[in-house]
């Protein structure tokens, strides 16, 4: 059975986000794999440990995605595919989804896993978009994916801790909320080593057109409120907290 993990990289939230003229200067920012795509990759690798599946990590060449793909190989993916063409960092999700959908159809992928969301997908989440474009069975906000014959089972999370066990016929698309185990870690040395011995498969692709939306501006939201800040001296902060709790009568007498 063929599993594809659709991956993208997103700006690293650890770094300060500076907005310039209503837009993000994406070319100057550092990128990390979207955390939910990382969870999807981990789930696929765990599925590989319990069934006869081939795991392919797929990313669109919108910048430097090689490291993300080599890391997927180092973690245990069987193949890594880069969809190449004239794509920029600002490629909207609707076009990304078209590229992924074309690839999954052409390669007759059985189970598509991808992150339930990404921090920048303002025009729709990849899982649903790819499912809609390919007409495949799908479920999002899921975890615990297992292959059973020509079906996949998974748990879909509702709000507040309620959930459902479900079964989908392949081909299927799943938006992964979390892997069964925390994503595995590989050393930079191991990624370098793979980089020398393995190659990324390049597939030419064309995005075509899709219904897009126009972003007028991006900005830091005006906070409805803000905490009164106590500064950065540990002892002073601890003292302030104790005083606050005394004030509010929240201390045990």
């Amino acid at each position, binding site marked *: 059975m063929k599993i594809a993990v659709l991956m993208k990289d997103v700006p690293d939230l650890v770094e300060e986000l500076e907005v310039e003229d209503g837009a993000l200067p994406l070319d100057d920012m550092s990128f990390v794999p979207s955390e939910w795509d990382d969870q999807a990759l981990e789930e696929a690798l765990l599925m590989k440990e319990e069934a006869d599946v081939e795991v392919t990590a797929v990313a669109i060449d919108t910048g430097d995605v090689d490291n993300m793909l080599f890391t997927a190989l180092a973690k245990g993916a069987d193949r890594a595919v880069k969809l190449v063409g004239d794509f920029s960092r600002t490629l909207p999700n609707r076009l990304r989804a078209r590229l992924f959908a074309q690839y999954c159809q052409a390669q007759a992928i059985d189970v598509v896993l991808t992150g339930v969301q990404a921090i920048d997908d303002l025009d*729709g*989440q990849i*899982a649903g978009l790819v499912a809609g474009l390919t007409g495949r069975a799908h479920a999002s906000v899921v975890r615990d994916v297992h292959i059973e014959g020509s079906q996949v089972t998974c748990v879909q999370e509702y709000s507040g801790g309620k959930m459902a066990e479900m*079964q989908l016929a392949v081909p299927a698309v799943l938006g992964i909320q*979390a892997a069964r185990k925390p994503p595995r870690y590989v050393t930079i040395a191991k990624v370098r080593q793979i980089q020398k011995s393995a190659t990324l498969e390049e597939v030419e692709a064309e995005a075509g057109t899709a219904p897009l939306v126009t972003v007028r501006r991006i*900005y830091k939201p005006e906070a409805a409120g803000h*905490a009164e800040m106590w500064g950065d001296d540990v002892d002073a902060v601890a003292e302030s907290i104790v005083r*606050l709790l005394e004030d509010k009568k929240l201390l045990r007498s």
Partner: protein
Amino acid sequence: MGQVLIVAECQDGRLSDATQELIGRGRELAQATGGTVTLAAFGEGARDALRDADADVAVVVNGDGVQQYNPEVYEEALAAMVEDRQPALVLLSNTTMGMDLGASLAARQARPMVAYCTALWRDDDALLATSQIYGGKLAADVEVPDGAVVTVIPGSWPAAGSSGSPRIEEMPSPAAAHTRVLKVMEAESGGDVDITRADILVSVGRGLQDPDNLELADQLAEALGGVVSCSRPVVDAGWLPRSRQVGKSGKTVKPKLYFALGISGAPEHLQGMKDAELIVAVNSDENAPIFEVAHYGATVDILDLMPALTERLEGRAG
């Protein structure tokens, strides 16, 4: 604007708050331009739930396929409704159902989409939406084209009161060919401790860095007479049981005091704790969104603060 189609969700026999929010806004938008509001609802119970909703028409999908949520059945029904009615705007809540169906419906019907919407307004002739992105750190104002599918973050604006009597239309539920729901499991209640009943929560996030540091949180909770809760990644990493998780897919809590330690304040976390009476946030990143809902905050390392505060509290108790 022509028709606003709102995908309704029911909870305990009534429309969910999130759905009432969509109805309120949908009605305002429709009214301004002489449009109408149509609700799409599922299951036998829905008919009672939406009887007095502020909508013109309610389409109730009924039959074996909708006894519980099944993405395939719901999507087939919605696709047929959209095809048939050609709404000018489709609104869903950004719940599991909205995350499941919004994007696929948009892609299937070749309609534009805006996700994570927190505001929806008219500016001259254009409909605009604010979309919350980058974990709540940024917002984007987006033009919403005619026919778009928009998913709205619950709690973005006030809920509508019930003040209508929609004409009810029935629609037989489509059959599920590929997707089966095997078992629905209710939320585990309680777990080892019930965080929804605690007055004081010491809540830890990914800033904890290592499960060994949980001891520091335990000691602080002990000194405060509180309980340790957490954000989702702490549960996903297996450091604490799911019963301790606060947020959209965890518990909603309203303690007297909520310590958010090493928690960034992603929208999904805020959803579960923003109504706490008193919120104190500690995060090394001064731009963390958690500071926008917290009453008091500090930018110190939680691994230094937790033991320092515990010591002070213990010293005070003598």
